């Protein structure tokens, strides 16, 4: 793998994923979604810099309480 993962949200790259996942998006619809998806993924990539240490993922479970 490259040091930096590809961040190339185009109708072509997303259409490949949609076919793999079995989603029935047209190429035109994917082109419409691309700008919003680009913005969302840019914000999610910014989260990669947050130090996580040994933190596990937050879970929504029955009677779960978040104690101070």
């Amino acid at each position, binding site marked *: 793998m490259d040091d930096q993962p590809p961040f190339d949200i185009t109708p072509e790259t997303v259409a490949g994923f949609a076919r793999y996942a079995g989603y029935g*998006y047209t190429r035109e619809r994917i082109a419409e979604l691309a700008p*919003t998806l680009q913005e969302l993924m840019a*914000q999610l990539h910014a989260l990669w810099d*947050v130090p996580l240490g040994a*933190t596990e993922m*937050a879970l929504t479970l029955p009677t779960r309480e978040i104690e*101070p």
Partner: protein
Amino acid sequence: MSDDLCFASLSALAAQIAARRVSAVEVTRAVLARIERVGGALNCYITVNAEQALAQARALDALHAAGTSLGPLHGVPIALKDNIQTAGLRTTVGSEIYADWVPDADATVAARLRSAGAILIGKNNLYEFAFGAPHPRYGPVHNPWDTARSCAGSSSGSGSAVAAGLAYGALGTDTGGSVRLPAAYCGVVGLKPTYGRVSRAGVVPVSYNLDHVGPLTRGVRDAALVLAAIAGPDPADRTTSAAPLADYTAGLERGVRGLRLGVARRQADERMDRAVEEAAEQASRVLERAGAQLHAVDLPSYQHARAIMWGVSAVEGAEWHREHLRTRAADYHPVVRTNFEVGDFVPAVEYVHMQRVRQVMIDQMSALLREVDAILMPTTATPAHPIGAATVSVAGEAEPVLAALTRYTPLANVTGQPAVAVPCGFTDTGLPLSFQLLGRPFDEATVLRVARAYERETAWAARRPPL
């Protein structure tokens, strides 16, 4: 007289009904008449439940005459956001897809309000599926303080109706701020309780991890009364908690002397409207004069909250909406459709990463709330923007409306802690301003107590919109 009755506080009205100075039927007729008069200009109701509400009022008056009271909400008209299911009453979710849906059962919160004696006066307009924009079938809700302005969302109609005296309280839902944002724009109190404190059973979801149900009211005591009626464990919602319920009204008048209040320090790159900043600063000074100890605090990761709220909601929403998006995509507002469809393309690894960052933020806030009892910060970066605006000017720079709007509220959704939006003044042009108080999980009593201490020292709650 009729308008004075409509603008009475929920708690004052309940006392009048209990003392038989006014009947539930008289109150319901007064509210229905005011809805008839000004509701159309605000577009805050999708369904006005006139017939059932009057029948309910007559039944409640009969009970009262027989010496039975169902509690502090007996005979009080309350509205529900239209994503909360109501038995026998249309629940559109603000959508074309559910435009004619009449559920056969109440959501738990609706049933609890009925059991507490509340009259369900109607169903409030909202953003379609509580996520992004109003569907053109229903149109935007107008702000009672300036009808050319937005009420924000997604509980737009709930905020507008309560501010305009068209209900004594309303329930909204809050995934990234959707109770507190309309409360801020409309100048009312909006409470997002702790995750797990109030059942979401029977509420059409956006995000299983981030959705909350909470009240919008014209006063802090009123919010406490509504919370008391709807809070508590529910077998139908496995995320509800068995944590003990507080008496939410008992400590409201205790004041803030000795309480440690964290005041969020403004970040170097953080833009907000000057009026918002000054109002929040003045609010902290009011509380300091009332005896609170102020401590400047940093919220190191609050700026991540919006990304997590957006990403988690998109993914979870895409899953819930999968069938509708396949078969009825054209029936969605284009913005709402896009908001959900992008969730299909967020890798699962990113979803897990968001949940880990979320846990970091929960841990950070927990550590901070060992040092202070509550945290004060603005609710929104600006006052209400014009309806239809794509951008808003924040401290002289144009910014997308949604980015400015959701700067501060998603944090409490991501951490699950309680947060209450409190009116704290008006701009020179008469638009409401608001700050929010964030507290420890399951400690709604403290944030309400601080909010009430502020409310007692100021007179904002007495103002009425020009309608």
